[in-house]
């Protein structure tokens, strides 16, 4: 508990003193499984991809490599692609590096992120720093940096987490990402796993939630988040350090989008 307090207090202090940049909107946090469960980041498996959204859950594998793509609203031009690597280092810590890109070529955003997470007892804490580059059609590219932090807790069938992105940021206003945070819980009930999450950014707070059922090595997921309320269904399979996940979301006006993840660890 002391460990949790020691990490969470500075995180909360940052939340209180940091003023929003009023900057560009960035896509929702989370990868395929999280999107299938109402943007609950705990639904994504711990691993290197978490360095982009929940810096505390980098996993404990010796080495892990993962990639993810998300195509919101079926628009190829807005496709977000992620690639990440995580390595376990001494003292129960995991180091991760990630590269993300999204948006059309003339307005593309790239993000290089490095994160470190530590596991103590039931708690995981972590932080990540992102270097962001934003292309512009009629001017030079802009650059910015942002600090993310995360905290997760697990005890038996229950888990909770808090993740804050862009707790602090600097650089060109047009390149700085919106600050946002996600507060969530998870409970295992028999073969089902229940997720609930609150996602907050400059546009307000949005609730979300979902269910995941384990069927052998596969997991079936369904959830929703909003407003505007988007539904999602997903499927995942994982065994022996290998995992795949896919999801399809449906926005009431903008239609369907999809996301895919793949990870390997040893």
């Amino acid at each position, binding site marked *: 508990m002391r460990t949790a307090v020691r990490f969470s207090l500075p995180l909360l202090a940052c939340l209180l003193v940091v003023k929003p940049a009023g900057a560009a909107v960035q896509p929702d946090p989370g990868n395929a499984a999280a999107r299938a469960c109402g943007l609950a980041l705990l639904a994504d498996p711990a691993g290197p991809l978490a360095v982009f959204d929940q810096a505390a859950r980098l996993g404990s594998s010796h080495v892990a490599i993962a990639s993810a793509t998300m195509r919101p609203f079926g628009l190829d031009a807005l496709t977000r692609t992620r690639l990440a690597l995580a390595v376990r280092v001494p003292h129960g810590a995991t180091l991760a590096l990630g590269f993300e890109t999204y948006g059309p070529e003339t*307005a593309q955003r790239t993000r290089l992120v490095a994160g470190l997470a530590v596991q103590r007892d039931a708690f995981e804490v972590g932080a990540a720093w992102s270097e962001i580059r934003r292309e512009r059609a009629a001017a030079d590219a802009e650059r910015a940096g942002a600090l993310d932090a995360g905290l997760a807790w697990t005890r038996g069938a229950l888990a909770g987490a808090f993740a804050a992105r862009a707790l602090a940021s600097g650089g060109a*206003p047009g390149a700085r990402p919106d600050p946002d945070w996600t507060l969530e819980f998870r409970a295992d009930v028999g073969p089902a796993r229940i997720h609930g999450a609150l996602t907050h950014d400059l546009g307000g707070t*949005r609730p979300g939630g979902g269910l995941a059922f384990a069927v052998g090595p596969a997991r079936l997921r369904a959830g929703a988040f909003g407003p505007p309320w988007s539904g999602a269904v997903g499927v995942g399979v994982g065994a022996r350090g290998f995992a795949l996940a896919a999801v399809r979301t449906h926005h009431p006006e903008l239609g369907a989008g999809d996301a895919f993840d793949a990870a390997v660890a040893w």
Partner: protein
Amino acid sequence: MLGLPVVLNEVFYDPAGLDGGFEFVELVNRTALSVPLAGFRLEAGDGAGPERWSVQWTGAAGDVLAPFARFTIGEGRVVPLPDRVVPIELENGPDAVRLVMPDGATDVLGWGTLSYASSFEGRPAPDVASGFSLARAVDGVDTDDNAADWIALSPPTPGAANRPERDLALVRVVGAVERIEPGDPFAVEAVIANLGTAPLYPDEAEARLWAAPLADEPLPGAGAGEDPFVPLGPDSLVTRAGIDALEPGDSTRIALAFTPPAPGTWRITAALRAPEDGAPGNDRVPVVVQVGPGVLLLSEVCAAPDDGPEWVEVVARGNVDVALDGWTFEDATGRRGRVATGGGGAFALAPDSFAVLTSDPAALLARHPALDARKVVACAPWPSLNNDPPSGAPAGTPAERVALRPPDGRASDVLELPAAAEARTRERRSTARPTREASNWGDSAERGGSPGRANSLAGAALPPGVVLAVAPSAHVRAGAGPVLVRWATGFARARVTLALYDLRGRLVRMLVDEDDAPGTAAVAWDGADDAGRAAAPGLYVVGLVARAPGSVAHASARAWVSVE
């Protein structure tokens, strides 16, 4: 006086315009015997005093009036030519005329306010308006009461019955418009009156529409009062409708419609077919209709300038140059400004090019320095344009109606304007779409408008299929003006929702949410959200959903926009 064999029957004392040459007096023989007119005198009175009569005509030995026939005494420009052509001087104001027989008997007609009893019989007849004659209500019937016996008649009928036994008249057509779109019907109601003395029985008569296409160019050298329209072929009978029974004095309305088969100018004539009609002159009403656009279209109207004069932009369509000299620009009151291109001769507007009409070219060029002065044409007197509908007018009442007319007066283009937005012009989106479609017009995206160049709401043609495009670029820069979001759905009209969302799918700005929107159109986005705040830098998604009316068919599309 009762019992006279010959009486006054019609008097025309106040022709329209100048009186000279058109005045006449008609006599009628009420008996079955010929009546020699030798010694008969026609005398004009003088309302200023009693028994002041001046002889206008005296019957000669050879003048004979056949049984029940008419005898006209009048001036040389009366048509048909009178039986006796003589100068006649009848006063327009209160006055009188009388027919004096050789035996001293008289028939007197007085009109207007007369003080002397010898100047009228019973009561004076009313003083009629210019262009009307005084005519016996029933030919030859004299009750010695001028007020009861005489009526105003137009047109005058020299040598013919005042009120024929059969006279079906087309009084007017209601609902005739100057301009329709191709495929639209030209629909009117013909107001038909039985002015004869005999009843009309069902299907004795017909109302008809005749139509003929007209040449694009008017008759060369047509002078004032001449018909400048040259038909390309004979009139064709295109619609006919039977007329029900109609008692004398009654009227009815008959709906007639015709859809011209081709664009261009058409002369459509409403006419009556009534056998043995005693007054065929009142049986036809021709209307000239422009079907589809003329050679010059309204492209942009500035009725509420922030600075400088009002102006209107016109665009030439078709394949030939349009000479602007003599064209007029007209407002709802009929006030017309005439284009005057100066002493340099004809100003010819090339196809698809613009000209800007205004009352003050210098002031307009000062307001729009980038405007090519060669495109600016003076138009005077300028018909000052209303910015708002009349106070108290029902919702939807247009603020103004403007028309563009070639020298021959036909309507090349007609536009109804809604209330004008301050410093925003009314812009046409496409010359390929009808002027009357409200969705083909919108407030300009540019403050002050775009005189002399392509409209801010216009753009290159969209490819076929469901299209959503952002122009001129999907990159929106602060202060660079609005972008145009254009769509094509494949539907003529549809329920259209067009909105801007952020990357998380939240609504930022509702751009269009209409139950009956055009399937292809455009809307400007000024870079603000629904609260009027500038959108933060970043990527956004434009979403279009169109649903066909009364159908499950729908179309949707998405596009991205980058705010920089």
